[in-house]
């Protein structure tokens, strides 16, 4: 079978299998309660954002971006949906009005189902108006952006949580919500948008922190275990980078050769 693997994909294939094994081992130990998660201030502040919306009697926005399930940004969308589940649960329990505009038609039914379940669990399904609170605006970037900007200007929300994949619209959202005085928690793994969020939002989740959101918020030992495996891979990546840099400087290309096989 190995001969079927094209050049340059053997090492990634072996690495994937090893990662699979290490992740399973980490999950096994996670279930035994061996690991804990460090504090992520941005995620802690979501509850404060919902509380602010309740106190001010204004809505809270949760924007998950315009990524779909069929693109490379799907993991970010899934992370955004996890946070939407948490925000909607808090909103249902505390009585804040949630607004979560949608842009991806394949993600929208899932988002609706998540929010509906949160309200059902809180016994407040009758308070949820799916069409008004999770409106489909547009699948086109700037039509969607202008729709949200307009909603923010009219409704003047108390808070805004944006976690997911974002493109050029990120700065428009962050600045508009800041201008109407909304408390903002923003996070994305799209590197070019991170500086915009860091510049304007009150709290920022940087890169992989958004993937830790679900584990952090649910305290699920399985997910916390898998988070530990992420740290293991990062440690390996750092070691490979340092050793590879030293060896390459000395003219030994062994790590480069192995990684490119």
């Amino acid at each position: 079978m190995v001969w079927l693997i094209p050049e340059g994909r053997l090492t990634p294939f072996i690495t994937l299998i090893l990662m699979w094994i290490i992740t399973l081992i980490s999950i096994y130990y996670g279930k035994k309660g061996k690991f804990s998660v460090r504090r992520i201030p941005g995620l802690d502040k979501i509850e404060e954002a919902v509380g602010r919306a309740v106190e001010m009697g204004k809505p809270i926005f949760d924007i998950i971006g315009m990524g779909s399930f069929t693109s490379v940004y799907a993991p970010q969308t899934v992370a955004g949906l996890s946070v939407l589940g948490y925000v909607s649960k808090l909103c249902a329990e505390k009585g804040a009005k949630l607004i979560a505009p949608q842009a991806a038609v394949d993600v929208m039914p899932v988002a609706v189902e998540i929010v509906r379940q949160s309200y059902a669990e809180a016994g407040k399904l009758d308070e949820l108006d799916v069409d008004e609170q999770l409106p489909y605006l547009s699948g086109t970037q700037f039509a969607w952006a202008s729709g949200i900007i307009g909603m923010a200007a009219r409704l003047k929300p108390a808070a805004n949580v944006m976690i997911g994949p974002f493109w050029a619209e990120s700065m428009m959202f962050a600045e508009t919500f800041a201008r109407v005085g909304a408390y903002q928690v923003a996070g994305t793994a799209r590197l070019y948008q991170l500086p915009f969020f860091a510049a304007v939002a009150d709290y920022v989740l940087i890169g992989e922190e958004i993937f830790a959101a679900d584990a952090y918020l649910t305290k699920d030992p399985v997910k916390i275990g898998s988070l530990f495996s992420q740290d293991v891979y990062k440690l390996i990546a750092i070691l490979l980078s340092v050793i590879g840099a030293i060896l390459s400087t000395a003219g030994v290309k062994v790590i480069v050769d192995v990684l490119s096989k």
Partner: protein
Amino acid sequence: MYKREIPLLITFLSGMVAVLEYYFPTDATKNAFTVLKNWGIVIAAFALGFGAVNLFIVYGRRFRKAPNPVDRVFSIWLLVLLVITALVGVSLSSASDQYQWIYNSIYLPLGATMYASLCFYMTAGAYKVLRAKTLDSTLLLITAFLVILGNTPLSAAIWKGFFSWRMWIFDVIVSGAYRGIRIGVGIGSIVLGIRTLLGMETGYLGRR
């Protein structure tokens, strides 16, 4: 069972086909992956109808109940344009002159206008950040100033060193930081993918 186990099984099988197609690109795996992608396109087309129905419900209701007459006008205007665009696209095809006119004369200028407004948002954001209040923000201000100098033709005409400084900032400082974040993002995505394939991540199913 049909709400949880069957979707998880479909996810596992679909994911494994995608993984196998990448690492073992034979005719069988390629064909299987192509079929899956086509199914995805068909399902997405159905979901598009869901979005259109939602637009009609929301803006139809707003047209009937909005106290502000301006809201009513905009609501009905949106629905009229939605119907016209859909009718022209379906009946004459998206390559027709009429559809292209709608696209080039209405959609494109509106999109370009929104995109152009981005510079004002960025300027406002930069104004908030680039203030020398702390050591960090002072360093950021100095770095941003050097990058701006390196990007403008006038400063390069005065002294070419500005351009070299800008390149050094991008190639060394920015690249180093970005690669660190990128590696973390890649690892996070892979672990999320493994959890999804193993049925431990169910956020995409619409239930936690």
